[in-house]
Structures are given as structure tokens and as C-alpha cells.
């Protein structure tokens, strides 16, 4: 591994993007987030940048597109060249035609609700009515999204949404396509969709820059791989990576076992023949579903995007009432949503504990217990810090500590996709934290690769509205990936990028 400055993809072609000794900091940040980044990206090249949460991946993206300066008012030193021209000298329209981004939240890319209207109006904006319609037809066919054009963007699954967002970006015919965490919230099918979209972009000669911490599924695609660490990019040679992959074995990172200290046979949750649908005129989301959760156990519900996992959690929490069947909850339930920041209601970590303890008429002891849990889970944050400023991994563990601290008697923690925004190491850390606490958990996940992290759990597959127990834990990819992260020096950062 070495600092990257001179990677040549095609040898003779000029780079689509060149970054030279780039430094960047936000207006109110004390230090530089980026410290001398160098990068060259050539037409048709796919580069993968990996790094811990808060390592500055999104900041790098903002810096090279001009968003960092123009939207965030940050300070930038060094040079960014798009197609050989300095970024600061390019008019906005030229920047848009040179570099396009699919960001972490592709919902924000759409103005028209109906996907087809949105894409077509963009194409017409760029090329006029006649040519615009031809470009629109070509791009939508290339990305195989014709079937999605009549749908509304907020009805699409994560994978479909990203594929459509890539199509919208390609309408601009940019030289560089940047994907920020493209696999976030995607199920296994969605990942395949994104991989396919990247193949298409490359086949069209675009330089593709991918920022992703869930990188294992993208390694085979990448022509060059970089690690963003301490504000600088370090190139990883494929040979070195292969060697590391061969050498890492999940020695220290074995799947965390449940503590078992509080495991009993006492069922806390019984769902029998549950049927649920949002509307009488709609299909059933849950059909004749049965589930039993005993105290101190972990239950994992695995299923694709839109399979009804979140609905299931809301039904078993008692928030949604089943249309048929019976749900018996013999304890409290706390729901931790997929967007973890929607869980927090207070302005500081300390107040989170105080308010939740007060809501259950518990005193100072409850708050102290919460602090203990926080330390136990290795979340070293200032108690006056806003929970909204924590990194995703810290926020998930804080939510678990808050929910556990205020439990008088058994509580079932319902965690909706808790692993999704985390690096491989953070996933392992969270799985270890949950096992340490030995609580009762129902966890949803859309990725098979996370199942290895909860090997002691009962795993069910949710498909067609029913649950089927899965026997046997699949491969050890995430554990190896966590080891690989360590070998590559991708630790766990304790802050967010901005």
C-alpha cells in the first residue's frame, strides 16, 4: 500500500478527473478533513474508495464537485481538474456535464414524482424535445428501467431507485460518475442491480468513482482501489489485496455468541396466524405468520426490500393491529427505525437517558445504568453531545443503550436494519455489543452477509408474507471483511464527516 499519485489506466488518454494535493475543511471545523488527496481517474475506469464512517469519503465527493465550497462554504486548497480544466474556472453547467453524483439519499434527486416524467424532462432540458426523447429512450433501455417509468420514485425499492438515479445521472452524459454509498439499504437483489448499472456506465466509457464501506461485492468491479485514511488516499494494489484476502482468517473476529446470562424459555412474544394488510383493497403484507420469541434470544428476520420486515416489527410491537390472528407481547417493545436518527428526541445524549427514564417513572439510577451501558458498549462520547451528531455506528449503539437502560423487566428490542449504515468493523462491534447485553432482540436485515454476525440467532426468511426458518449460517464474508478492514487500516472513526 502506498500514497497514490500516478496511476495510469489507459496510458495515453487524459484523465477525466484529476485531484492534486487537495485539502478541505468545513467553515466551523478546527482541522482539515482532507489532507493532500491525490487521484487520477481515466475514461472507463472504475475506482473504489473505501474508508471508515467519518473518514471523509462524502467530504471528498463534495470537494471534487464544488458542493463543499458552494453549498457548505468550506475552504479548499489544491487543484481539481475536470477534463483537464480547473473546477473553479468551469461554469456550473459545464461542471454538471462533466461530473454527476448519485448521493446516499437518491430520493433527493427527483423533482417529478413519476419517474418517467422526471427523466424525460431532464433529457428535454439538456437536448431539446426531439433528441431528448431519443437519449431518454437509449439510457432507460441501457439500464433496463423501462418497467419503472410509470412508478413514483418513493414507491421504488432501494435497488430500483439507485438504478433510476444512475440513469438520471447518465442523461447528462458526464465524463465522471460518482456513487456515494450505492449499496446502502440495498438487499441482495438491489446490490446486483447497482453492479449491473456500474457495468453499463463503464461500457459507455464513463469514469466511475465509488465511495463505499460495504466494499466486498464491488472489489471484482474495481480497476483501482483506494483507502481513505487520515484525510489522504492510499492506493491498494490488487495483488496485495488478494494476498490479504488469502491471509485473513476470522481469528479474533468469530461471530459473537450470546451471553446467555438471561436466556430463559419464557416467551416474551407470541404471534399466531397473523395476517396484515394496510388496506382492504391491497394484497396481504403478512400471511398466516407465526413467531415465538423467548427472553434473552435473538431473532433475525431476513428478507428483501419491500418484503414486509418493517411492517412485521410494527405489528409485533403492537403499533399496528393485525387483521387476523393474535399477537401477544408479554413485555415492553422499543422500535429502533432504519433511519437511526429518527429514534432520538432530545438535544443531548444525557437528556436521551433522562427523558426515557422519566417516561417510565424511573429515577437517577436508571440514568446511571444507561451511562454504564454506554461505557460497556464502548461508545465514548461527550454526554452533552447531540445524538444527531454521532456517527451511524455510535448512534445505533446509543439507541440500544437508551432502550435497555429504561427496561424495567424484560423488553423486546425491535431493530430495523441496524447493520445497514455500518462498516464491516462497526457491524461486528454492534453484533458484539448486542451479544454482550444479552437482551431480547428481533432484528431485520436484507443482506445475507450479515447473518454470519448473529450466528447464535434464530434466523427466519420473510418472503410472500410468511416466515420460514433458515437452518445453517451462510458464509463468513463479513467476518473476513472485518479482518480485511483491520489489515487495510480502516478502523472505526468516532465522528461524522460534517
Amino acid at each position: 500500500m502506498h500514497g497514490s499519485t500516478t496511476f495510469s489506466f489507459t496510458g495515453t488518454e487524459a484523465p477525466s478527473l484529476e485531484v492534486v494535493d487537495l485539502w478541505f475543511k468545513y467553515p466551523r471545523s478546527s482541522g482539515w478533513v482532507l489532507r493532500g488527496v491525490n487521484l487520477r481517474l481515466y475514461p472507463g475506469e472504475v475506482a473504489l474508495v473505501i474508508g471508515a464512517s467519518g473518514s471523509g469519503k462524502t467530504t471528498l465527493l463534495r470537494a471534487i464537485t464544488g458542493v463543499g465550497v458552494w453549498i457548505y462554504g468550506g475552504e479548499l486548497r489544491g487543484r481539481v481538474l475536470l477534463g483537464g480544466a480547473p473546477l473553479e474556472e468551469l461554469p456550473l453547467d459545464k461542471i454538471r456535464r462533466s461530473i454527476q453524483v448519485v448521493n446516499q439519499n437518491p430520493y433527493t434527486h427527483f423533482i417529478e414524482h413519476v419517474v418517467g416524467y422526471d427523466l424525460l424532462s431532464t433529457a428535454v432540458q439538456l437536448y431539446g424535445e426531439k433528441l431528448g426523447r431519443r437519449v431518454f429512450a437509449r439510457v432507460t433501455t441501457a439500464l433496463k428501467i423501462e418497467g419503472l417509468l410509470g412508478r413514483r420514485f418513493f414507491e421504488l425499492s432501494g435497488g430500483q431507485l439507485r438504478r433510476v438515479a444512475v440513469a438520471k445521472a447518465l442523461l447528462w452524459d458526464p465524463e465522471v460518475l460518482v456513487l456515494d454509498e450505492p449499496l446502502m439499504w440495498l438487499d441482495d437483489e438491489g446490490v446486483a442491480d447497482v453492479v449491473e448499472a456500474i457495468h453499463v456506465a463503464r461500457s459507455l466509457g464513463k469514469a466511475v468513482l465509488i465511495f463505499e464501506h460495504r466494499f466486498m461485492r464491488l472489489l471484482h468491479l474495481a480497476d483501482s482501489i483506494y483507502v481513505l485514511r487520515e484525510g489522504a488516499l492510499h492506493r491498494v494494489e490488487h495483488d496485495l489485496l488478494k494476498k490479504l484476502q488469502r491471509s485473513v482468517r476470522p481469528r479474533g473476529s468469530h461471530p459473537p455468541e450470546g451471553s446467555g446470562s438471561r436466556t430463559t424459555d419464557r416467551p416474551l412474544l407470541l404471534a399466531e396466524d397473523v395476517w396484515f394488510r394496510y388496506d382492504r383493497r391491497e394484497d396481504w403484507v403478512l400471511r398466516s405468520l407465526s413467531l415465538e420469541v423467548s427472553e434473552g434470544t435473538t431473532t433475525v428476520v431476513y428478507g428483501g426490500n419491500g418484503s414486509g420486515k418493517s411492517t412485521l416489527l410494527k405489528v409485533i410491537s403492537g403499533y399496528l393491529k393485525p387483521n387476523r390472528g393474535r399477537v401477544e407481547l408479554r413485555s415492553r417493545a422499543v422500535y429502533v427505525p432504519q433511519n437511526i436518527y429518527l429514534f432520538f428526541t432530545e438535544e443531548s445524549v444525557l437528556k436521551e437517558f433522562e427523558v426515557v427514564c422519566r417516561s417510565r417513572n424511573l429515577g437517577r439510577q436508571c440514568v446511571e445504568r444507561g451511562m454504564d451501558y454506554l461505557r460497556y458498549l464502548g461508545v465514548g462520547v461527550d454526554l452533552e453531545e447531540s445524538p444527531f451528531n454521532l456517527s451511524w455506528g455510535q448512534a445505533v449503539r446509543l439507541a440500544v443503550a437508551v432502550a435497555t437502560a429504561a427496561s424495567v423487566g424484560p423488553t423486546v428490542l425491535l431493530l430495523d436494519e441496524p447493520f445497514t449504515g455500518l462498516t464491516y468493523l462497526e457491524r461486528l462491534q454492534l453484533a458484539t455489543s448486542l451479544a454482550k447485553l444479552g437482551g431480547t432482540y428481533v432484528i431485520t436485515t436484507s443482506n445475507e452477509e450479515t447473518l454470519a454476525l448473529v450466528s447464535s440467532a434464530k434466523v427466519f426468511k420473510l418472503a410472500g408474507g410468511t416466515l420460514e426458518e433458515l437452518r445453517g449460517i451462510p458464509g463468513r464474508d463479513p467476518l473476513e471483511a472485518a479482518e480485511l478492514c483491520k489489515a487495510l487500516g480502516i478502523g472505526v472513526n468516532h465522528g461524522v464527516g460534517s
Partner: protein
Amino acid sequence: MVSGARDLAYLFVTSGRAGELGSVAKVVVPLTLLVPAVAPYLVPGAEARPSQPAVLVVYELLVLGYVAGVRRVSRMVSLVVLFLGIALALSMLSSVLGTGPPDPTYSVSWTLRLLSIVLALSMLFQLLTVGEVRYLLMRLGLRWLSEVVSVAIAQLPVVLISFSEATVAAVLKLGGRRVSAVVKPLVVDAVVISRQVAEALYLHGLPPAPRPKLIEGATDVYLILGALIASSVSALVV
């Protein structure tokens, strides 16, 4: 609450068949129905007759059924009726207490009138694409407002999804008494989304608001005629 938020979102989301109508019909039909529904609010001492707004409501449901499909309309209506039912109940209660309207006919009439206004506004949002809203506002000289409104309409469904998630989390975390606690995470979420929208606008810009097609076909004419008839009948019936 979860499905309610979704149904509420659909009240303001462009319908898939919106492209089959010309802009004149999209604007004239809802406004023609809106005027007789709103006018009594502006005229002091206006008489309350339930049959007047009932005519408007029936026609609005027919148009919405054509544009958005019966299934979606029934979902929307059930939500609107729920809210109006609450309003009606409160109105009746205040009548019993001697502080409200004099009789149930009055309450029913004004409730129907309110329903007709909500449906007409919903029709406007379901018929017009965001680009058309922008075009109209720009033509009125409201360029800045046109951009704000476009983004607000575009992101409304996403915000409502966040609202639904935050509500479930807060109710289970703090108990049903502190639902107001959802305000803080939603404000933070809105700030985060607005930043991301700003980034997306920087990179994509707003698509232009091209001059929309004024007349698309015979359906436009039928719908406008129907709206004029419904509006006139509602003014004439006793």
C-alpha cells in the same frame, strides 16, 4: 398513522394519467369546482344547503376516479372523511353545548363544503406535474416561489414517510403521551434532507418548466363541461 401518512401523501402526488390531459383542463376543472365551494365562506351570512356541495363532491370523485383510479380515490376519501368526521363530531358537540352552529344540517353542509375544497385542491395537485406548477408560477412572475414549491411538493412524500417512522419510534420509546417529541428528529431530518436537496439541485439543477400542452384531446373538453355543469347545478339547487 402509518397508512394514514401514506394516504395523505397521495393526496398531493401527481397521478399517472395526468399526462393524458392538457394544462387548461388541469387548471380549469379544479378551479371551476373550487369557486362555488369557497364562495360561501367569503359571503357573510351565506345559506347552508347540503345538496350544493354534494353535487360538487360527486363530480370531484368521478374525475379523481378517472385520473387516479377508484382504489386510490377510496383510500384518499376514507382519510378525508375521517378528518371531517372528527370535525363534524366536534361541531355537533359544540351545538349541544350551545356554542356552535344551530342545527345538524348546517354542520353537514359546511363539512361537505370543506370536503369539496380538499378534493378540488387534491385534484389540482394530482393533475398538474411539478413542472407545470413551476411553469404557471413563473408565468405569474413568481420564479423564486416556483422553485420552492417544486422542491416542497417533490419531497412531501419522503417527509411523510419519515414522520410515520419517527412517530412509531417515539410512541414505543416514550409512551403515547409524548408524541410531540417527534418534532425534534423531524426537524433535524428536514435539515439533513434540505442540505441533500441543495446538493442535488447544484448537480442537476431544476429541469426547465417547458410550455405545457394546453389541450390534449376531447377528454379535456368533456371534463371542463362537466365541471361547469356541476358548478352551475350546485349554485342552483335548493
